[in-house]
């Protein structure tokens, strides 16, 4: 008999593996995110081609690109299941918490990958100088995790609704504003802007990610139709 902990691990990994296999064969989510990021970076670069960009503006653009790319691509893991009528597969066989955790971990992994690629493209193409590399990496990592967990929660809540895509965006927008504020402050500090609360941004984002990851499975299990 499998232990309860081992059983949870197996189920969560199975959901993660399913998402990974599907994504690696279709590349729809990561391509959407990567293309949005790349196009946005190129647009930012073309606008600021002749002018020097200050750390606060650069940081703001960086976070806008990340947030909008994530909020378009990440909720798909939940919303697409309803569209393709595969949601009942989970409802009949799986525990809601395992489904949520599997999908959330996949979204976090996908967001970490997208953030890494986008950050490199941003620094290289826009030619932004990083004063504090450690803080910049910490902000990018914390941002990827917190954005992914927040957008996943919004997608999970919206998934049973008929107008789920609009609802998902409506739910995630107010939740992400606080994150953007933290992210802009922290990243601007890493780019050379002197802000006292810069370092606290990364801590705040990790705390935010922890909170959304904690309540996500509970909320999802309450709206689970099965």
């Amino acid at each position, binding site marked *: 008999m*499998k232990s309860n902990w081992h*059983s949870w691990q*197996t*189920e969560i*990994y*199975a*959901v993660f*593996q*399913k998402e990974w*296999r*599907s994504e690696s*064969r*279709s590349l729809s989510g990561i391509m959407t995110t990567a293309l949005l990021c790349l196009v946005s970076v190129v647009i930012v670069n073309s606008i600021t081609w002749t002018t020097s960009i200050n750390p606060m503006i650069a940081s703001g653009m960086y976070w806008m690109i990340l947030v909008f790319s994530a909020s378009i691509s990440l909720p798909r893991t939940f919303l697409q299941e309803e569209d*393709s*009528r*595969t949601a*009942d*597969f*989970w*409802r*009949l*066989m*799986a*525990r809601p918490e*395992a489904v949520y955790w599997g999908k959330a971990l996949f979204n976090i992994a996908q967001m970490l990958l997208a953030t890494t690629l986008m950050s490199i493209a941003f620094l290289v193409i826009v030619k932004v100088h990083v004063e504090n590399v450690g803080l910049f990496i910490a902000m990018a990592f914390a941002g990827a995790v917190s954005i992914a967990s927040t957008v996943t929660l919004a997608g999970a809540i919206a998934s049973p609704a008929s107008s789920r895509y609009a609802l998902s965006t409506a739910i995630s927008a107010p939740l992400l504003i606080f994150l953007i504020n933290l992210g802009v402050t922290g990243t601007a500090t890493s780019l050379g802007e002197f802000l006292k609360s810069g370092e606290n941004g990364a801590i705040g984002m990790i705390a935010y990610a922890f909170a959304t990851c904690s309540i996500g499975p509970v909320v999802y299990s309450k709206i*689970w*139709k*099965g």
Partner: protein
Amino acid sequence: MTPPLRRQTTNYRLARNSEFCDPLGRKYWTIQGSSLDTRCDHLATFCDPPGQNPGETLGSLAPRPPGAILKDVIEVNGLGKKYGSRWILRDLTFSLSAGDCLIVTGKNGAGKSTLLKVLSGLERPTAGTVKTETTNYRTELSYCALEQATFANLTVAEHLELAAKIRGIETDDKKTILECGLEEHKDVQSQYLSSGLRSRLKIALAIQSRPKILLWDEPGVALDGAGKVLIERVIGEQKQRGLLVIATNDPDERRFGTHEIELA
């Protein structure tokens, strides 16, 4: 060999209003004083002479002493389901035990699939209760739905692997694949399967856990001659193991039933 028939056709009529079951109320979440999850892991039985009072209730299919505890039972009591202002199912009452095969017939839109969804727990009843004696619905109850899709980018073998892992069971997937005639297609992604092969995959997923209760919506759709043989074998095995509820209007499939109800 065709199983002996003890078919009982009952005309299902729209009946008296069942008491509305408010999802926010305590009654919706509790039954007989005990906590009830959405799958109603309970048991029960009851009786009601079939069709004696047309317009009042659907007769029970297997009269038993009230309160008797039976193995592998579905009990449906005063079940009603409403979409918007339209009642799809109303005051439906029956019970089934191991070895039973209930055939649900009726014209399009009569509520056959809705009944199966409610029995599976995918839809909540507007009124009445559904109780099943299962300790783990994920392994003991399977629903082979007509409209349920498979994951386009996963292969047949990966579907079964995924289902076994999330159900928390260890199964012989090779045997299931062989039984369902999918051995040549086990490494093919679902999106490249024909509709008949996808139906076989859904059957494989449904019988993988060897459930006590199998709910099956239009089994023969898209299946060829060999598929019909597969249906017959699965139904025979399921009767040995537990019970079935099949929604169909196909005369070939109706002959497997031990009981039959017609939704109107």
